[in-house]
């Protein structure tokens, strides 16, 4: 895949996210952070600390109650839904704990989904690019298989390939290794590191302290607030 050189990165400015209700729940409480391009940032914290909520805000999947997310320096809080949808399609790739692959589509077809939605390339170019991405992840052999015919690690690699489809500068991963064994988890982390080295901005929510220790930047959340990360032994 082509190296992405984008200067700017992802910045959170005083992000607050409150779930309204009879008893309002504060998910993210005044978080400000900056993720550098070309770095892998790990977001850690105990369960329910708001890691995933922060990631969804950074990825424009959710709107903050107040504060803003700067994408390459541009504020996003005032954008309408259609523009945010478009921005996600062009600039973000998501990997979730569960692969969320379309079960009726082959591996190749799943990778093609974001490209076909973007419609920036010709059919032949799309297919060539999808196969190239799959090849770089060691998945070229599986291109015609259905997700149900893959192992857990292979499915997650397919999901990563899909996240890379439109060559986005930002890759956001929510516990991408949560459902994998140690060996597969390490492999997925290696891939994410590789993406960061190639110049992308990568943010990973993870429980795994060992993996988090390898990250270039670390953000630790407790009760929705950013705190000093605990020292790793």
């Amino acid at each position, binding site marked *: 895949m082509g190296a992405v050189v984008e200067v700017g990165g992802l910045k959170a400015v005083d992000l607050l996210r409150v779930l309204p209700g009879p008893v309002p729940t504060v998910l993210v409480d005044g978080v400000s952070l900056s993720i550098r391009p070309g770095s892998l940032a790990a977001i850690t914290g105990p369960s329910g600390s708001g890691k995933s909520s922060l990631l969804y805000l950074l990825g424009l999947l959710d709107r903050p109650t107040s504060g803003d997310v700067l994408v390459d320096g541009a504020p996003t809080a005032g954008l309408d839904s259609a523009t945010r*949808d478009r921005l996600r399609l062009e600039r973000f790739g998501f990997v979730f704990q*569960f692969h969320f692959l379309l079960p009726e589509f082959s591996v190749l077809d799943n990778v093609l989904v974001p490209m076909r*939605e973007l419609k920036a390339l010709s059919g032949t170019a799309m297919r060539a690019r999808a196969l190239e991405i799959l090849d770089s992840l060691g998945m070229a052999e599986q291109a015609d298989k259905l997700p149900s015919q893959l192992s857990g690690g292979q499915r997650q690699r397919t999901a990563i390939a899909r996240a890379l489809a439109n060559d986005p500068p930002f890759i956001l991963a929510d516990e991408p290794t949560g459902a994998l064994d140690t060996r597969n988890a390490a492999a997925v982390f290696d891939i994410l590191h590789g993406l960061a080295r190639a110049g992308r901005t990568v943010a990973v929510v993870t429980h795994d302290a060992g993996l988090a220790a390898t990250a270039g930047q670390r953000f630790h959340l407790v009760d929705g607030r950013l705190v000093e990360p605990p020292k790793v032994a």
Partner: protein
Amino acid sequence: MIPRLSVPLPISIAVAHLRARRRQSVVSILGVALGVGFFIAISGMMHGFQSYFLVQIVESTPHVLITDEYRSPPAQPLELLEPQAALDLRRVVARDPVRGIANAQAILDALQAMPGLEAAPALRGQGLLRRAGRDYGVTVLGIRPEREGKATQLASEMVAGTLDALEGATDGVILGSLLAAKMAVGLGDSVLLASPSGGTARLRIVGLFKTGIETLDNGQIYVQLAKQQAIQGRPRVINEIRIRLAEVARSIPVAEALERRFGYKAAPWEETNSRVLSVFRLQNVIIYMTTGAILVVAGFGIFNIISTVVLEKARDIAILRSVGMPPATVTRIFIVEGMVVGAVGMLVGWVVGFGMAEALRMIPAPGSTDPTQTLRVDTSPLSFAIAGGIALLTAILAAWLPASRAARIDPLAIIRGAA
């Protein structure tokens, strides 16, 4: 599966969903197909029956019938004198007991001068035919055979003898074929005709006709006009002018024009046979409602399958939304699913309808004396188009509700729930 990338993404996903639920999809498609097929076949059969019947009516009855009646009774002198007064007139008796069309010859001459129109005078009355001690109530029409031959199809409806034979026979009579069979009489036999006013005449049968309309074949006879006037005791009176038009379709405007001009009631065949036509209209409503109901039920089937798919595919919808697919495109996926079911159902339904119509055409027509006569089924491109259009519309409407619900799915709620 080789992806066909020229196909828009929503269509690919929609087709993949339907293929994954093959049995459900096939049942939904069959529902639509049966609706479309029945619609085409049954409406074709009804239209066939109705147009057969209409041809019979149009051929056997005058296109416009002028009678010695007024659409509204003429105003009484007192009413003309005091138009504002609240009058209550009772026991008004017609001035002229021998009713008929006044100045008939002048009207006939005027009609004769009009192009595209043939007119024949007639005196209609009741009578009793007596034969071998039994009486048969009949409608007696006194006609001028030469004119009648031009204004109606009587000449071509003769099954024995000719209309011309009546022209030369002052004591001739033409009977309906069913009546003749009932009375066990044939050409050359004589019968006795009596009128309510007491006149009688011995008549000789010179012809038999068959229109296919039972009330005529079983109860109508023709004699010469002068003979009828004598028997009924109404000399030189006619009470009907029977008109045939070159263009049947103009019957209503022509009738209106004639009524305005001559004052007498001029009824187009649509009015004379309004009861039959209103039965046809009712028949059509019933057919469209019942066959439409099949399509509505098919619509529920489509609603059902797409609702299920939307529920099952919440995760897929969530990932598509998070990838950046706008809600409108998500809606399109499921609308397309409905349209695919509707369109395939329509095509299969066309084949089913065509086949059913062909099968119906092989069934012998009930009540027909000719064994080779089969059911007439009129299928038109229009009936195929209407059935297909209703099917597609139903399918889109049925898909709309679940499809718009799919667009409202919050991707975050699903992603959070799965984690």
